[in-house]
């Protein structure tokens, strides 16, 4: 008799816990669907104030392409500007500094900040150790995004943008900050998206994903074809 009573006591508690879990998951799922749906739609209302901007740089042609894009964006709208490059990338932040210094407007130049982030994985690194370094990179991305809380994120391909965009998306879901994420696929990508581009496209993390060749627009209908930037 006692045993049955005890069993009856336990049952409601575990089922109410399960109910709570189910409810929480449902709410999160609804919120994620809302965020994904709202991303890709232009912001409203019409904006007049400057927007803090995170700019992700990368080795190879990535930084050159990004600076090329920045040269046509108005420096008094996208500020403050936070430049982030991988810790092992020596040239990119230097190039970004030179780019900022070449601007003639003093007040606008002071709005630039330069930071480094740990890389998820170096070229050729074993996949075993990559798990650890990726976790470190994610934690570091969390720290950086929390500090910056950028309203705009500009990236064009390096793997360093994935933890940053992932965390920014998480912040969108949780409601800490709504970042508009713009991804410009590299001009070197003609027929296939890079891994970063593919992830941001498929997971619908980027608000807008731009491609520079028509073949990519045909293959990925939600991408926007903008012609060659270089």
């Amino acid at each position, binding site marked *: 008799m006692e045993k049955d009573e005890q069993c009856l006591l336990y049952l409601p508690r575990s089922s109410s816990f399960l109910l709570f879990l189910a409810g929480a998951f449902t709410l999160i799922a609804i919120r994620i669907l809302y965020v994904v749906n709202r991303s890709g739609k*232009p*912001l*409203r*209302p*019409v*904006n*007049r104030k400057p*927007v803090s901007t995170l700019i992700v740089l990368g080795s*190879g*042609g990535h930084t*050159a*392409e990004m600076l*090329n*894009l920045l*040269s*046509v*964006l*108005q420096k008094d*709208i996208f500020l403050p500007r936070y430049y982030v490059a991988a810790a092992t990338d020596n040239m990119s932040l230097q190039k970004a500094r030179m780019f900022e210094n070449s601007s003639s407007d003093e007040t606008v130049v002071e709005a630039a900040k330069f930071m480094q982030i740990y890389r998820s994985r170096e070229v050729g690194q074993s996949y075993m150790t990559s798990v650890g370094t990726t976790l470190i990179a994610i934690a570091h991305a969390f720290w950086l995004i929390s500090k910056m809380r950028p309203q*705009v994120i500009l990236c064009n391909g390096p793997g360093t943008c994935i933890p940053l965009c992932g965390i920014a998306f998480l912040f969108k879901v949780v409601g800490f900050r709504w970042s*508009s994420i*713009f991804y*410009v696929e*590299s*001009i*070197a*990508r*003609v*027929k*296939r998206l*890079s891994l970063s581009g593919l992830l941001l496209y498929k997971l619908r993390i980027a*608000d*807008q994903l*731009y491609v520079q*060749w028509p073949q990519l627009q045909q293959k990925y209908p939600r991408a*926007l074809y*903008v*012609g*060659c*930037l*270089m």
Partner: protein
Amino acid sequence: MGLADENGDPKKIVFVTVGTTLFDALVIGVDTPQIKKELYAKGYTHLLIQIGRGSYIPSREVKLLILTGRGKLSENSNGEDGSLAVDYFTFSSSIADSLRSASLVISHAGSGSIFETLRLGKPLIVVVNEDLMDNHQAELAEELADRKHLLCARPQTLHRTLVDMNLESLIPYPPGDAKPVAKLINRFLGFPEE
């Protein structure tokens, strides 16, 4: 914009670049008698190779010059054919000067080197590195070759490409424009589109 050597004879430089990469197959391929002979036959006088992180070192070749009776410097004319002068370096902070003084550029398939060369309006042969994993670079080189902005080759086909090349048939690359993207970004954020 003609360069000249000691005599005031025109210099025609072939500049080979591998960027920041390691691409011994290209450096070795270019440093063969076959290729150098072909370049010389086409009227080039100098070969300058930027070898990057490569381990293969080409041999420098200086033109042999003798002073003729009339005080003019001329190439060694004891029956040998004249030859290409060859020089190399590993890196430089900017290859812009080397590109500017070149009459022909042979480059690895990196987008930076490609577009820097095309923007200067120089004839370009891109050599794709087949040792690279997941070679997406080849896509860009092939697309631009299809559009006749450059010639595309592999290390083994470089000689054939040089023999058959008709640089007159290349079409200048129209400069890119980042303003369409800027417009879309501004519009999305609710800013005036300019």
